[in-house]
């Protein structure tokens, strides 16, 4: 027989948000951030698919513009890594980065060399390696000179169209999953099939998404190109082939700012502190004038990127020290950062 023991109780801080407020908070994040964000992303992905159908030339201005607009829309939701984005590896199939082992160029190269007919089979393309799908695969095909003359032009065109079509299908699948299933699960914790037992757990999921998004932007989007002082790595910046590294950081900050603001509702001091911290990071990013982080290779340029990184780390610290306790989801010494 299963025996259960309770050893200690967890005490919530005295300033924790009241439980009733959590329902409003969850609804606000869903209705003003998550659902509109994925709706916009699905719409931009469709424009991208249509642009590739209309003109698959890598230098097509319309195609490149659609690529950037869809990528921007993805950055509005790319931090929401739970539920629909995780099913079937959808988010990784949209954004396979970082790619430390170079799987994306290898996988694309094999498809092209074999002229794999899977590009003509929309249902089959979602079984292609996730490294050859999504925005980073498309970026290689549109911007990398190494892929400009690999294989036959007709095959490259078919591959570009297949990747764009797959991005669109994936965006639709995520949106549909949110609209028909997951929004209700998040809105109704403790009921039916909801994976959340309580409103606190649902809020914790949203809070974790904020922290993970901040960590990814600081440690990975900025940390990888920064490398070390002796060995800066500008070629490891995210989407550097299409000139997006700084844009990705700025767009992700916009999205995280919006989420943080909705979570902090009801606590004016935390709201104001987060607002000021995001404003600082935003103005540092706007003033950087180094769209690809190429400047990390010289000491002055490097310092400015490090200062931007530190400003994001201040938001992380503030979120952990003030927002988490306010939401009643402060994590323990071990739970906070396991190993």
């Amino acid at each position, binding site marked *: 027989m*299963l025996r259960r023991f309770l050893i200690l109780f967890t005490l919530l801080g005295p300033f924790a948000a009241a439980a009733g407020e959590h329902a409003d908070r969850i609804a606000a994040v869903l209705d003003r951030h998550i659902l509109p964000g994925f709706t916009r992303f699905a719409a931009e992905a469709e424009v991208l698919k249509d642009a590739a159908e209309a003109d698959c030339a890598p230098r097509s201005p319309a195609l490149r513009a659609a690529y950037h607009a869809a990528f921007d829309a993805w950055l509005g939701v790319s931090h929401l890594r739970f539920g629909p984005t*995780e099913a079937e590896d959808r988010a990784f199939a949209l954004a396979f980065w970082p790619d430390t082992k170079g799987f994306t160029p290898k996988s694309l190269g094999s498809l092209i060399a074999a002229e794999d007919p899977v590009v003509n089979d929309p249902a089959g393309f979602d079984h292609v390696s996730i*490294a050859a799908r999504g925005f980073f695969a498309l970026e290689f095909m549109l911007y990398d000179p190494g892929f400009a003359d690999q294989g036959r032009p007709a095959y490259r065109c078919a591959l570009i169209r297949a990747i764009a079509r797959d991005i669109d299908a994936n965006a639709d699948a995520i949106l549909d999953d949110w609209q028909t299933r997951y929004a209700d699960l998040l809105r109704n914790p403790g009921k039916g099939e909801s994976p959340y037992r309580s409103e606190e757990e649902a809020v914790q999921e949203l809070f974790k998404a904020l922290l993970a998004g901040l960590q990814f932007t600081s440690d*990975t989007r900025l*940390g990888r190109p920064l490398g070390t002082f002796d060995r800066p*790595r500008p070629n490891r910046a995210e989407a550097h082939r299409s000139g997006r590294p700084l844009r990705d950081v700025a767009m992700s900050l916009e999205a995280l700012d919006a989420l943080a603001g909705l979570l902090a509702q009801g606590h004016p001091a935390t709201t104001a502190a987060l607002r000021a911290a995001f404003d600082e990071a935003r103005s540092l990013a706007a003033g950087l004038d180094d769209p690809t982080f190429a400047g990390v290779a010289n000491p002055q340029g490097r310092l400015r990127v490090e200062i931007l990184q530190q400003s994001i780390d201040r938001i992380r610290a503030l979120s952990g020290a003030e927002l988490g306790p306010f939401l009643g989801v402060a994590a323990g*010494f071990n739970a906070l950062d396991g*190993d």
Partner: protein
Amino acid sequence: MPNRRTFLAGLSAAVLSPTASWAAAGAPDFLSGARTAGGSYVLAGLRGTGEVAFTLDLPGRGHAAAAHPVRPLAVAFARRPGTFAIVLDCASGDVIARLEAPEGRHFYGHGVFSAEGDIFYATEHDYEAGQGVISVWNTSDFTRRDEFPSGGVGPHDIALMPSGHRLVIANGGIETHPDSGRAKLNIPTMRPNLSYFGIDGGRVETVELEGALHKNSIRHLAVRSDGLVAFAMQWQGDGSVEPPLLGLHKAGAQPQLLQAAPEDQRRMMGYAGSVSISSDGTLAAISSPLGGLAHVYELGTGKMVAEYEASDICGLGPVKGGFFFTTGTGASGRIGGSDVTDAATSRLSWDNHLVAIPKPG
């Protein structure tokens, strides 16, 4: 500042002191890292009764430690991605050596001594290649003597098999790079495994889980006296999935995965932070600081038989009739027996792991 040579000469003398045993360090049963109320970090010796036998200052947050089989020596690692470990004489409190990871490497926070204590093995990361390495050190002077591939990416825990001739390594599968802190870089393609090596570095066997579980990072180990290996996992995939978090393996056989009823399994939050096998070999326990929960399994039946709720519980170690546990809130006590003993509390926030000190005989 003393130069390195004289420093090391001093060390060897200390290490070779023939008389000292763990009794001289207050006869602790376990080692654990901890944070003090003042915010500094220590390595502590703990008894199975909850008493603190000693605390020694550490330069930063530790992770796991390794205990010498005979002498009161502990190797305390800096937290991942730390590049050093310090060797402490737990009787005198002296730091007697410092292990430095070579250029391009960092430690993962776990290591183990050979049966006689003359060799020390540590899990290490070759971070440009993204490959795991086991470094091999002489304990007479703590110089590096060798290394061999760990058989995978992200080796974490390492344990000595009861024969003393083999090592078992949990290759967690997760690639990181110090440029990106602790960010996980390869979740969609990760492939953890459990690998066995001879103590000379020759690979004996590698065990992988079925494809659908490739995001279940195999990270921590406990070994029974008959060679049964219990491994604890941390799920990196879709949060709506409730994967098994405890596995058992016997050399040459298929792994057996254990899980509780879905409702209980879900409360572990896809995360097992530590694993332990009871001294009598009948029970295994895993802890989840994320869920504030420990689950005890009966090894004979593979069933989860007891569940303990304790905020930020993580450290687990064997005691007679069950397990000793520690929490990040400073609590410690016993679970797994017929009752829960009164939990002791201290002003120390216990870190992830309890490392059992080998018992003579």
